[in-house]
């Protein structure tokens, strides 16, 4: 479904992604790990269409479409979802209004009628239960004054509402307490089908106990430098990144 080839991307003239390639097929879960500043969030931003990043080389296709040609909103409507590492607060825009607008824009893209108010609220209730999100949060402005963990839970709630084909979870586990981590991971697993796929960016092997990846990639200095199975995550947890950095440097 997703084919990234030799992707290079800059921010403010500084190259962050330096030739990254990755293929994701339906039904797969890919974990991406890597040291701080390696470019993990940059990859997520580029895939979701953040204009702050400039793609200088390479290609990304999503179900055969040139993803880089699409606006951020069309990428979302095509089925890409990014759970932000740092979700944004939007004072004055209610969660309900925000979600209803988003869901109906997705429906419009698929030539479907907008949801009736009752249908929308029913679906919203179901999805809230999935991530055990407090009713009070859903009645507030988007992320405004939410705790770190609440924001992350809200991301997964939105993911449940939009039912993406490819979800990119950028450190969704950070800031979650142990119970919340289990709830959120369960939510992600319940949404999993053989048709959709996830890219899970994390620093901690713990999350991968819940969301079991098919592949673990190490992103270092703007490239994927190593790929393995879920045991690679355990190895990283154990040994850190130095040995990988050394491997990379020796290869040059």
């Amino acid at each position, binding site marked *: 479904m997703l084919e990234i080839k030799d992707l290079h991307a800059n921010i403010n003239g500084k190259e962050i992604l330096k030739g990254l390639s990755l293929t994701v097929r339906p039904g797969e879960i890919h974990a991406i790990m890597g040291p701080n500043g390696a470019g993990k969030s940059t990859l997520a931003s580029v895939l979701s269409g953040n204009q702050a990043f400039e793609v200088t080389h390479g290609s990304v296709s999503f179900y055969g479409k040139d993803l880089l040609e699409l*606006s951020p909103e069309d990428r979302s409507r095509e089925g890409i979802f990014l759970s932000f590492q740092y979700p944004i607060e939007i004072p004055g825009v209610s969660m309900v209004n925000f979600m209803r607008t988003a869901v109906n824009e997705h429906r419009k893209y698929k030539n479907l009628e907008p949801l009736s108010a009752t249908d929308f609220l029913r679906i919203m209730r179901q999805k809230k239960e999935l991530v055990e999100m407090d009713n009070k949060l859903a009645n507030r402005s988007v992320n405004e004054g939410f705790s770190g963990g609440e924001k992350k839970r809200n991301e997964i709630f939105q993911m449940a509402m939009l039912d993406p084909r490819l979800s990119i979870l950028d450190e969704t586990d950070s800031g979650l307490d142990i119970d919340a981590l289990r709830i959120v991971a369960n939510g992600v697993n319940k949404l999993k089908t053989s048709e959709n796929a996830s890219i899970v960016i994390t620093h901690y092997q713990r999350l991968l106990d819940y969301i079991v990846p098919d592949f673990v990639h190490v992103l270092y200095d703007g490239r994927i430098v190593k790929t393995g199975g879920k045991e690679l995550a355990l190895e990283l947890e154990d040994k850190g990144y130095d040995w990988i950095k050394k491997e990379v440097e020796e290869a040059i």
Partner: protein
Amino acid sequence: MDESISKKPTSGVVGEASYIELYKQHHESIKMHSTEVMNNIRDDAFAQFEHLGFPTVALENYKYTDLKTALTIDYGLNINRIPIPVNPYEVFTCDVPGIHSYLYFVVNDAFYPVNDARNNVLPEGVIIGSLNKVAEQHPELVKQYFGNLSSTKNDGLVAFNGAFAQDGFFMYIPKNVILDKPVQLVNIMRSDVDFMANSHNLIILEEGAKAQLLVCDHTVDDVHFLSNRVTEVFVGENAIYEHYKLENMHVKTTNLATLLINQKASSNVLANVITLHNGLTRNTIEIDLNGENCETLLCGMVIGDKNQQVDNFTSIIHNKPNCNSRELFKYVLDDMSKGAFTGKLYVAKDAQKTAAFQTNKNILLSKTAKMRTKPQLEIYADDVKCSHGATIGQLDEKAKFYMQSRGISEKEARLLLMYAFTSDVIDNIRIEALQDRIKMLVEKRLRGELSKCEGCVICQ
């Protein structure tokens, strides 16, 4: 309609000279078609105008209201009070669902005779009507208040109004009477030629009274209009007054409004002035707190684009201790529009325990839109809590991207953000039906679907 217009004798002369000449030649007709109470101050007001002239940008308080272009237009005046051939009660049917207001009209500068059955059932003692007429029927009542706030103002527009205004809207709510429904005053500008209207409104709430007034300003015809209105409001002890103003006028309009409010002890005032669409607007709003334990909330909002200009010049004067005032103004400016806000806060020496907060936030949607914001704090008491804050910025790009990443189009995301930005001003509308309606209108305006005046947006 033509015979109703008194052309200025010195047509073509720019500025005040032609009006000074007009007054000199026609002051007897002006007086003849007005009332003693208004005439009492007329010559003095004229003398003051002769001295001050129209305000220019050289004056500190009018730095951002440039009337030069507007004053080059040769406006007609209806000094001889020829009735305007329009029956607003037939032309306008209010469709604010559930507002059920007492409905009144001022057509140009004249109170339109009431002929709506809904208005026959006012609570006992309440008087609402033409200032001119009421001043004949209840001269003592009107005399006691008329001009008390306006005649001390050293302001060219107020002086001009004093010289030329012949009528206006009058509302009197006696002691402890609570108006069960909002009162709606629709100012309609209607003329086949460029036209000017001066009116003077007088609103009196006695002790413990309660009233809500919604003023809608709008234009009917596609000519140049200049309206210069003065409104005096007296709010008695423990009285509660809400003043909403909704401006939806076309771009050829110059709308000058002076709102003077005097609060007595323990009274509560909310004023919320919303400019949805306009040409050039100047609101001078002054609220004087002349008793202890007053509550004041002054809000406003401007949505501007094209060449629109709005200057809200506000003053809140704390003369007595233990009063709270809050001020909140928001502007969304696009294209070449210009906004200005002045927030003068005066706390007298013995107005201890004053709490006063002022906020002005602005969003510029284009590089050519301009905003001037000026807090002006003069605090002479030492035990007070006062704060002010002003920001001028753009839409939050991060928030916009976040919404887009959820499939919301850029256009819709911008709209949601602008709408969110203005929402706290709209939240300060305490008439639910009106709040709903204004939410809808603001959204429509922000979508660009209300790009010209479509008659009274409230009433049509």
